[in-house]
């Protein structure tokens, strides 16, 4: 379909491919004068850890928020399991959102609720389970993440790493298909970073979920990533497996890799 009046290339409807849980085509978003996303095309592979890397302010978080419908794009499509979520209304989106669990950068726990109430929140909202059942599930999730005995504490009484684990427990409690992590290792010391990495890898392996991770931590990225995509200046510039990324020649990517010490200077 060619139109004389449209300068931009019309995004093609992607052919549904079972390998991909989320398919993004031609995504554009501007905030005022700032064009953050300029035609993002991205496939998120099912049951894999998909990592989106890129510098600060390149629109990684904005992209992630598009995937779960928190932000509406100006143009483009986002297919979740083959269904375009862009034209959906808020109450229709709620159905789609049940497939997702999201861990925010600073965990975004409700600070007026205890750890137990935080993790129980999605269960109380969306299931008809009894109080005893909810408590049992919450305890199991917390124990699995090494948070035994923190039930009655408030988020402000926990360390950053623990808060992230509580956030993960909350994201996992409804057993979602897709787990999204917004810069999970930012602000953590190296050991806590490694623990969070292991937590992401274990979760992906044990539950078979599709993981989408936003990160600028190259060491973690290569430690856990199955597929890596790089977002730069509003588009995806490189996609591939860690081995492919390691040998790619994109200048910004090379700078990322050398300054982070993942590969030496050539």
């Amino acid at each position, binding site marked *: 379909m060619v139109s004389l009046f449209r300068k931009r290339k019309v995004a093609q409807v992607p052919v549904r491919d079972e390998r991909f849980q989320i398919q993004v085509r031609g995504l554009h978003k501007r905030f005022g004068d700032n064009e953050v996303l300029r035609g993002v095309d991205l496939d998120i592979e099912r049951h894999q850890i998909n990592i989106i890397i890129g510098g600060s302010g390149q629109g990684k978080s904005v992209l992630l928020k598009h995937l779960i419908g*928190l932000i509406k794009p100006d143009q483009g499509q986002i297919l979740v399991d083959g269904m375009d979520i862009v034209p959906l209304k808020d109450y229709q*989106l709620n159905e789609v959102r049940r497939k997702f669990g999201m861990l925010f*950068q600073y965990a975004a726990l409700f*600070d007026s609720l205890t750890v137990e109430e935080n993790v129980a929140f999605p269960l109380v*909202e969306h299931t008809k389970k009894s109080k005893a059942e909810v408590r049992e599930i919450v305890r199991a999730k917390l124990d699995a993440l090494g948070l035994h005995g923190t039930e009655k504490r408030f988020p402000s009484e926990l360390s950053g790493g623990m808060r992230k684990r509580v956030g993960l427990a909350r994201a996992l409690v409804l057993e979602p298909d897709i787990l999204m992590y917004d810069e999970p290792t930012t602000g953590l010391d190296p050991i806590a970073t490694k623990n969070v990495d292991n937590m992401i890898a274990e979760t992906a392996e044990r539950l078979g979920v599709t993981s989408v991770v936003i990160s600028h931590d190259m060491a973690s990225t290569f430690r856990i990533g199955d597929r890596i995509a790089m977002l730069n200046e509003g588009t995806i510039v490189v996609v591939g497996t860690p081995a492919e990324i390691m040998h790619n020649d994109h200048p910004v990517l090379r700078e990322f890799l050398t300054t982070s010490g993942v590969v030496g200077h050539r």
Partner: protein
Amino acid sequence: MSNGSAAAQTPRRRMAQDAGRLVGKATGPALNVLEEIGNTVTLMGQAFFWLFRRPFRWRQMLQSMEFIGVDSIPVILLVGLFVGAAFSLQTVSAFRMFSADAMVGSTVTLALCRELGPVLAAIMVTARVGSAMATELGSMRITEQIDALHTMAVNPVQYLVTPRIVASIIMVPLLNMVFVVVGVLGAYLVAVGVLGVDKGYFLSNIDWYVDIEDIVQGLVKASVFGLALSSIGCYQGFYAKGGARGVGLATTRAVVQACVSILVLDYFLTDVLFAVQG
């Protein structure tokens, strides 16, 4: 945009542009105010839309009512007592000049019922609760807790805004009643106890001059003020941005806007209610 081109250089064009800029500058603040009011009313509308949809947020509603109403009682008692007392002191000294101090009770009570009760109770609630709403929702916004509600498929307006607005509409009139009762008590203590106004005249004139309409007028006003202050507080917090500073600014704006709105609304409500009640 055609400025900078040759056409922009002609004097007439330049004059038109200057005039346009001037109009823009003059109307800018007014338009901002209108936009802010429009946005606040939109959020209010959403809050009522979600009020009638499942699930009903009883727990949040009761918690808000406790915070807005019950926890405000001490401050309302204190302020009401002293406002009534001070007002009584003023009226006695003024009315004594023409030997009308028997009218002090009814005058103070009428003023408290119609004006001072609703306005001052609402302003006290703004200071205590309106600011807290803006701060709390603002912090939730900047720490992504509101986004988190979205991702967990819970509507944040229904969960956070609706209970606060409804609770305010219910609780501010009740606080107004408390305010009026203690205010009259304060006035009585000063007038009768300290200044020696006749107890019988004080009370019987209240009975004679104060009608049920006066009390209703105060209650109607108070619930409108409750609606206004909670909508403003929630709106400012809900759409706060720019970190801790942004939350601070949101709180300031919430308190200032709510206080101004209460006083402006008070005039128009008085006008309307007098027309309606005859």
